[in-house]
């Protein structure tokens, strides 16, 4: 990435944020839905989970699930409609590079997501009086999460013929995330094989890194023991590894499936 790429990416990200504010459907999907989701999940009556109050357990992990809306659905929609309206074609014929266009959308989505995560953080702090312990770990989870789901969104938009169909093509990913993400319970509480699968999906490491970072305790299994700062980073290494693998998978899929122009015929 050159300096110009960075500059273009920032301008395109700012554009994306402006456009989110201009369209009520997008505004609802991207800004409101994730927060409603968080409210819904946190209203399930649960006792303590892994040594944490149920509500806190849910809210510290739910940002991982919010990625589905703030990033994945948002970007599948944006990429698809912009391709069909030939906006991507125009951009490609213009000066910004492919990397800048992608990075711009990723950056915009990251900003939206971080804002939402911040709201959740404030919520947890106000009502449950818990302060995040390891913010850098949480931000790393957010960045890697946005990268994975941004690239997956690029790939999925390639398989989506038009903006209306986007509601359908995102469903499989959405369902898998809803079922497998360890938001309301630890991943290891899932029955055997499901737990293994859940641990390999990108959403699980994000949820667990977020929660561990917020609470300063080991939430990569079902333990919940307090960890030192160094301990948190060490415990997070496998999750970071899984996410990096997913970044590569996402990049390959995006390279293979993403399209700049509408398919003809």
């Amino acid at each position, binding site marked *: 990435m050159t300096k110009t790429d960075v500059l273009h990416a920032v301008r395109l990200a700012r554009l994306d944020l*402006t456009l989110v504010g*201009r369209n009520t459907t997008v505004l609802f999907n991207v800004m409101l839905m994730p927060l409603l989701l968080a409210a819904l999940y946190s209203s399930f009556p649960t006792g303590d989970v892994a040594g944490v109050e149920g509500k806190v357990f849910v809210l510290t992990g739910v940002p991982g699930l919010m990625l589905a809306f703030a990033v994945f659905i948002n970007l599948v929609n944006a990429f698809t409609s912009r391709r069909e309206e*030939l*906006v991507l074609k*125009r951009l490609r*014929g213009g*000066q910004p590079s492919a990397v800048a266009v992608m990075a711009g959308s990723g950056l915009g989505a990251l900003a939206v997501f971080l804002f939402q995560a911040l709201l959740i953080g404030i919520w947890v702090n106000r009502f449950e009086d818990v302060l995040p312990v390891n913010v850098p770990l949480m931000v790393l989870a957010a960045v890697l999460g946005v990268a994975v789901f941004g690239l997956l969104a690029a790939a999925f938009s390639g398989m989506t013929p038009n903006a209306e169909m986007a509601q359908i093509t995102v469903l499989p990913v959405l369902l898998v995330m809803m079922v497998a993400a360890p938001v309301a319970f630890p991943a290891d509480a899932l029955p055997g094989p499901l737990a293994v699968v859940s641990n390999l999906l990108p959403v699980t490491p994000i949820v667990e890194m977020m929660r561990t970072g917020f609470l300063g305790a080991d939430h990569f299994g079902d333990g919940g023991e307090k960890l030192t700062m160094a301990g948190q980073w060490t415990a997070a290494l496998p999750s970071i590894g899984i996410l990096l693998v997913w970044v590569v998978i996402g990049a390959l899929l995006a390279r293979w499936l993403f399209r700049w122009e509408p398919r003809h015929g």
Partner: protein
Amino acid sequence: MIFPMRTRQLADATGTGTTGPEDVIEVGGLRQKYGDFEAVRGISFTVPRGEVFALLGTNGAGKTTTMEVLEGYAPATDGTVRVLGLDPIRQHRELRPRVGIMLQEGGFLGDLTVAETVDLWKGLSRDAGRPVTMSGSTELPGGFTLLGSRIRRVDRVTMGALELVGLEKKARVRVKQLSGGQKRRLDLALAVLAAPEVLFLDEPTTGMDPEARRTTWKVVEDLRDAGTTVLLTTHYLEEAERLADRLAIMHEGRIHTHGAVEEVVATSGDMIAFRLPGTSWTFGDLPVLDGVAPALTYASGGTEVGYTLSGSDAGTRAHAALRPLLAWADTRGETLERLAVRRGTLEDVFMRVVGEA
């Protein structure tokens, strides 16, 4: 904008060393396939610096396809293309800032305003790294954006671009509320924004009203006079005649005629035309003039007859052909209604090329 010198004089004065290759656009044996379908079937042409070249042709002839290869959207299936001496795909990064593109359609974000669209494009153009220094701000009334409700100011460069295409009153309007022709104007403003050396215009005036069309012509002429090389497609033949130095007529992937506009028009020769009452006339009834058989069309109770005399001596041939024609009319006791000899037009050439193909 008044530019004192025509480009070719400019090039002559400065030599080609600093201004780059003389042929800004080079297409050699270009073939382009979509799957099994060959949309462009081996075409060649060059456009020298500062010239306007028009690609004419039937729908589906391959004009847009050719343009898009030159714009670097797709690699050529076969043949060579160069723009400013560069490969549009492999040297895209180098080439992009020097090229302005007006696509055949679309490519706008409907939720942005007209001014924001120009601003965005400006921000993504060559000078993006520099702050826009020439931008004293013009305050416009009533510009509230949803985010933060702050008054957005439209800077001078943006306003200038909009004035160029007569969209200054629409600066605050969302792009999705523009009419088709207004979108074309905006597209033109974007294409010329970064003062490109090469301009690709795919049907620039389709959907424009006559005034906007004239504005567009003026913009193109000014740019050409400043040394910009222009490749344009159009279905308006008078537009090609007015703007182009040279043109090519395409049909089904091939170039059938090309050359300087006057030369191409001259190939259509002269036309003798008249009308006979009744619709019972056939070829056999009419004389062959100077070896040319007539073309007949039947319309509202009469028969339109036309002879096309081509070649550089068409004028004298027409003169000579009138005598036997009038003699034929006298013997038959017929009156040749609305008898006329006229110069052939580009449209005649177009129809002949497409008809023969």
